[in-house]
């Protein structure tokens, strides 16, 4: 019996030590170091190294920024109705539309439509609440947005923080598949907005090039979703994205060798070369049609 309690005490001590050591970086006054001292862990993995692969998707703010830089004119009518949030009753539609609203919120903010931004922020918050994501879109977020009206950079920073906190919360709580769906929704909305604006903008060459430029991020998005293949909602989105990818894979490509140059005066480093993809008119129409159908299904 004495041995039993010795074991119990020892085990609890080891467990609490590991907790303390591995959590010490989260405080503000403790060093950002940790150490695991369990020999079994070392022995089981000795000599092996692990490889983590991450796939980065452009943020809603980055997509909206690209649209603006391409010379597009703001059009509120093509965005999802912020009142639609009440329609989304499943966690899949809530996650996808949290992404959609993220892109719409970024668009309204990039184009300095603060009042509309507030509507989208509130809709995004409602969906985040339904998904049980706490802290990312709070009263404080809404108040900060309100207090920073007219401060373009501050508003974009608040939106980015909210989506960063969402991603962080979901990964911490072992729900990275939900985060991937949010990213998918945001990406699809970005493609939809781009293709719709290409139809209504007279000088649309740059917008069309930006749509073609999404090829790499589509591949990354699909690779990210593949990790969660078989989980709720993932396979259907993957199938839809595969039909878009089919068109992208047939684009003409001009291959160029990459190189790096740093300007002696400005100190700006530029990566030159790289592959340039271009759409035919028919391919752009195909992508526009698929994106429109897919987006309609998501927001309906």
């Amino acid at each position, binding site marked *: 019996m004495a041995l039993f309690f010795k074991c119990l005490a020892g085990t609890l001590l080891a467990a609490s030590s590991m907790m303390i050591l591995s959590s010490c970086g989260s405080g503000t006054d403790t060093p950002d170091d940790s150490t695991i001292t369990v020999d079994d862990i070392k022995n089981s993995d000795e000599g092996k190294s692990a490889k983590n692969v991450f796939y980065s998707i452009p943020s809603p*703010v980055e997509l909206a920024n690209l649209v603006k830089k391409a010379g597009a004119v703001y059009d509120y009518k093509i965005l999802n109705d912020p009142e639609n949030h009440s329609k989304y009753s499943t966690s899949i539609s809530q996650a996808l539309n949290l992404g959609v609203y993220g892109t719409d919120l970024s668009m309204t903010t990039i184009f300095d439509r603060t009042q509309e931004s507030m509507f989208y922020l509130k809709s995004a918050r409602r969906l985040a609440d339904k998904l049980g994501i706490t802290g990312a879109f709070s009263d404080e977020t809404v108040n900060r947005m309100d207090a920073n009206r007219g401060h373009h950079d501050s508003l974009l920073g608040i939106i980015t923080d909210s989506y960063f906190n969402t*991603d962080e919360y979901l990964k911490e709580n072992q729900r990275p598949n939900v985060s991937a769906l949010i990213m998918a929704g945001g990406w699809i909305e970005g493609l939809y907005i781009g293709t719709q604006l290409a139809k209504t903008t007279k000088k649309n060459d740059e917008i069309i090039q930006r749509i073609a430029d999404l090829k790499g991020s589509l591949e990354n998005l699909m690779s990210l979703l593949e990790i969660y293949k078989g989980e709720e909602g993932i396979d259907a989105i993957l199938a839809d994205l595969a039909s878009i990818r089919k068109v992208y894979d047939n684009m003409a490509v001009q291959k160029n060798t990459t190189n790096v140059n740093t300007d002696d005066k400005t100190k700006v480093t530029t990566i030159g070369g790289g592959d*340039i993809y271009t759409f035919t008119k028919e391919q752009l129409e195909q992508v526009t049609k698929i994106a429109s159908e897919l987006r309609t299904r998501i927001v309906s």
Partner: protein
Amino acid sequence: MKRSFFSLMILIALALIPMGSAAQCKGFVKKTGMPKLVPFLSNGQVNSSQMRPGDNAELMLNFFSGQDYRIVVIGQPILGTVHFKVSDMTGNLLYNSKDHDDTDFWDFRVNNTQQLKVEVVVPAYSGDNQIIPTGCVTVMIGFKTEK
């Protein structure tokens, strides 16, 4: 009885590790990583992992033409100096932090939109005791917006 109880306690202890690790990365990214991105705006994604000596990680990402970017790669001090390389999809090396005094960030822009790969390497462990250090490593991407 004793053995099964001991096993249960070990399982509980191991189950608690990821919770602590996630909290550890959270504090590290916010406290140390985010300030290094300024004046760039984060792309809003968390690319962090608990890593050990000899581990490596890859981040695949798309950079858009005409946009200014910053890549930040940092690891907790216990891991030593974490190195990173940036290459194109044919393997052509574009940047190696080892050749730049092991700086933890790189600012650049691209002429044409490109898919690039960031490879992060935690140096091998050179100690001779039984302790394996683990620590959080994070890769953050920032960009500048149009005003």
